[in-house]
């Protein structure tokens, strides 16, 4: 047995990895089951920064959304980008999309298609969101944007001069944004934004990033980086937070329309969103007596409506992640068992 394991062909390990990833995807795809996530303080900080952006100024927040990644890292980062746009759209923030990666505009288009065009068709291009596209130059682009971004981003992706775009009024440089939210796959990415934007201009900055980058960015939290999502785990946590909040927010709006005071509506919505299966029983209680039948139906609908698949990409991916991690741990232990067994017998590695 030990001899068989010692001479084990790497292809069998590849097959084991393929099965550990492939089978859970099939099972999750067919059952729709996802693992519940417990958000970490860093994901919560990311969420809260986006949530409260612009509040101090008492106006709609201007969020610079920089999607600095490409398809090679989209498996990890797309769920973050989608959830970020989802939260901004639901919150009513203005989004200014840019990218420092040549393929970034495609990533922007994908997120806009998945979230805004599909679920928020009322949002108007040029008023609620704008795509400024890609610029070559890496961190030098950030440097120029810090002084005057209109000299670097002269037109949007459609070739329209920025001064003709309504939401660009009053936007001159990075300091005109309430928050920079960035999703990064490497260089140029989070580190450059921290060094040349967040630190130099003291602008709130949150970033989601690949697993390779995440450990290197932890020292910046919380002074230079106010929120951090690391790898698919961070994506799943943030996605979970956003999905729950969106449901809660929608319920709160129904309750408010039904006569609940704002604070009471938010409190009740939070309680209902955490236990959606109990909403139908709650609607027949005395507390819900002030609500009309339409509001009640709407509440039950919100509680029971399935979350669209594109908003569950990160959480779905945690299934294969679980089995692949277990395989990795198993392989390391197995490799060591063989190593020590051999050493005891006087063999070498």
């Amino acid at each position, binding site marked *: 047995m030990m001899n068989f394991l010692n001479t084990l062909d790497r292809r069998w390990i*590849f097959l084991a990895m393929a099965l550990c990833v492939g089978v859970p995807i099939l099972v999750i795809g067919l059952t729709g089951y996802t693992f519940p996530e417990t958000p970490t303080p860093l994901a919560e900080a990311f969420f809260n920064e986006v949530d409260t952006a612009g509040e101090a100024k008492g106006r709609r927040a201007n969020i610079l959304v920089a999607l600095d990644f490409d398809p090679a890292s989209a498996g990890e980062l797309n769920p973050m980008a989608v959830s970020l746009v989802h939260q901004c759209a639901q919150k009513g923030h203005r989004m200014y999309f840019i990218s420092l990666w040549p393929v970034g505009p*495609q990533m922007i288009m994908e997120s806009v298609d998945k979230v805004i065009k599909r679920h928020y068709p009322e949002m108007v291009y040029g008023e609620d969101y704008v795509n400024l596209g890609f610029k070559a130059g890496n961190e030098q*682009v950030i440097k*120029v944007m810090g002084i005057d971004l209109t000299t670097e981003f002269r037109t949007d992706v459609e070739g329209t001069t920025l001064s003709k775009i309504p939401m660009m009024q009053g936007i001159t440089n990075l300091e005109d944004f309430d928050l920079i939210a960035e999703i990064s796959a490497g260089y140029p990415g989070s580190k450059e934004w921290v060094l040349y934007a967040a630190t*130099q201009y003291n602008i709130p900055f949150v970033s989601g990033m690949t697993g390779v980058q995440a450990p290197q960015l932890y020292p910046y939290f919380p002074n230079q980086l106010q929120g951090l999502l690391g790898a698919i785990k961070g994506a799943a946590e943030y996605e979970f937070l956003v999905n729950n909040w969106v449901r809660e927010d929608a319920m709160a709006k129904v309750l408010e329309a039904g006569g609940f005071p704002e604070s009471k509506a938010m409190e009740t919505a939070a309680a209902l969103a955490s236990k959606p299966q109990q909403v139908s029983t709650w609607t027949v209680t005395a507390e819900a007596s002030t609500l009309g039948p339409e509001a009640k139906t709407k509440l039950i609908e919100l509680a029971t409506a399935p979350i669209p698949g594109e908003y569950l990409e990160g959480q779905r991916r945690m299934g294969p992640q679980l089995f692949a991690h277990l395989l990795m741990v198993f392989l390391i232990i197995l490799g060591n068992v063989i190593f020590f067994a051999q050493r005891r017998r006087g063999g070498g590695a």
Partner: protein
Amino acid sequence: MQILTRFIPLLITGIAGLVMIISAFIPYTSEWGQKAGQFFNILAAFAFVLGGGNLLKVHLKKISDQSVGWGYSGVVLICFIATLFVGLFKIGAYPNPNFPNVPFSGETQGTGSWFWWAYEYVFKPLTATMFSILAFYVASAAFRAFRAKNFEAILLLGTAFIILLGSVSAGVFVTNWIPNDGPFGDLRLENLRIYIMQVFNTAGTRAIMIGIALGIASTSLKIMLGIDRSFLGSGD
């Protein structure tokens, strides 16, 4: 010739570097830094052209020499030229609805264009798969190379275990018996993972960052002062 290949480039480096530094400190000069940055970004776009030109040169040489695998160089060239053609000429791209009479007014990467097709069905699957293949090799390497030979290696392995298990529900399951809000709640794997990242990882990475920052500052200074001239080549 020395003036053209040594003196002037070193002068340009020194002045360009100085401009960037003083523009960061003196508001009046910020526009200089801005201009230098704008010039740099245009040059960065030219660098893409240079990259393409280099690729063309290397593979044309391989084909003309008929060296090993020259057929694949042919594939590289065909794909390069085809993508370049459909992208530069915006083949199949719909014009901007505000200016329908200007064929080049549409988005190069807009859905439906040939360039979009090349991205969606060629570039995207290829690059995404290229990177995903590393998952297999990392598993194989873990089996063959990760050995708890000494205390340092045990620390590395132990941390990797906590991060791997603490990131998934297995970690929650294994240490579920520890009350989360009790005094030992931080010993739950998922919490231990956060603790390691925010304390030990932060300390190690911070020290590395400080070291790198010092290194970059000194290297940059050497470049600007003309002490480090390696970027100019040997001059042969």
